[in-house]
């Protein structure tokens, strides 16, 4: 829900009366099919990301950092 502009004194009180994430009402007779399109949303998750690949920039920088320090010792 968007917050409306209110006088500063009321701002604090009004915070108590807000739930930013109030679900929108569905129409009384609203029905829908769980279409394939809707299913797409449920397939947007990855659980195989925790791989052994260390060729990304971050990992390469980390490697350089660890090697530098090893040399310094």
């Amino acid at each position, binding site marked *: 829900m968007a917050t409306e502009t209110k006088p500063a004194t009321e701002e604090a009180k009004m915070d108590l009366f807000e739930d*930013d994430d109030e679900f929108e009402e569905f129409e009384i*007779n609203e*029905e829908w099919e769980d279409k394939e399109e809707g299913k797409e949303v*449920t397939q*947007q998750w*990855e659980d195989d990301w925790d791989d052994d690949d260390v060729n990304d920039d971050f*990992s390469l*920088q980390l490697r350089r950092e*660890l090697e530098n320090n090893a040399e310094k010792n």
Partner: protein
Amino acid sequence: MAYPSMGEAHRRVTDYLGRFSDAVSTQDVASLKPLLSLSSASPSLLSLADALNLLQDAIRLIKQSEKWSQLAEIVAPLFRCLQSYRLSNLADAYPAYEKAANAFIQEFRNWDSAWALEALYVIAYEIRVLAERADRELSANGKLPEKLKAAGSFLMKVFGVLAGKGPKRVGALYMTCQLFKIYFKLGTVHLCRSVIRSIETARIFDFEEFPQRDKVTYMYYTGRLEVYNENFTAAEQKLSYALAHCNPHSEANIRMILKYLIPVKLSIGILPKDWLLEKYNLVEYRNIVLALKRGDLRLLRSALEEHEDRFLRSGVYLVLEKLELQVYQRLLKKIYIIQKQKDPSKAHQMKLEVIIKALKWLEIDMDLDEVECIVAILIHKNLVKGYFAHKSKVVVLSKQDPFPKLTGRPVNA
């Protein structure tokens, strides 16, 4: 406000009464609903309100007339409500509507069939929304806002009326959802417990019988409650249900579900694809996802700080903060893999000093004791398999699967 002539005013009042009476006697809920729907601010209701304000004695007329006396208990307070509403006096409009609603419930109980259920839904919605507006008005005038709380009590009563064996019971979930909205708004979420218990344990209710739209709303709110109570497995289940069954066109609602589901998924080691964050404008999670993938503790902390207010408001801050342990795990795993590539025979022995150096590179200053403590926690929570060799300040990692994946389970409490 253009007032009608007396004759026209009379006509509008008797017209409304006639429609109300016919709707009830023919059990025509489609015609009844608009007569109760204050928030629709329909031209016909507004013009009726003008007529009432002009006549001033319409109520006396209803009560005196035999024709309308049956409905007087409902319609008289409804008229008073309309009058107050039209004059922007919401603090008075609310109690009048509640009185009318109460009278309606009494009639509703006597009707055997559930023909008027949709009218009851309208009433429940109006009660909540009118109470909210009344409280805003009271608050703005420096008075105590207590109408929404009263609306909550009233709807609990309505819930009780529906919690029986007959066909009316399918309306109970809609009432529950209206109550959730009230309790969440008031911040009295502990009150959700008793309705939830009724819905989930009372034998008269079969969850599958309820309308889809109410089930989705119900799972969204109970899912949020599970997040607050840190029951992540249950939270994932409920929010995923809501997501899978939500109207695909309700983008705002899908976004809200994801807003709570994403932190839950993250805490069980499952990441949202960037497409999802982009489409539903949840980019505040982008750097957190990246931090987990990389093992970048600095990025996690900066992402938390950047969106601190937002995460605090939605109550997911603590859930996200706890991801630190998973980020540590990922970082250590990367160090391990890098070392293994250099010298496979020594890789399973990780010097704490190396970890300190990696953290320092991420601008995080930790001494030996602190790092030892973190690693101890990781071992304790089974994010790292291994043990300390204290004298040499080394973690000896298990040769098999030293960094177990979460595989959909939350980190041990």
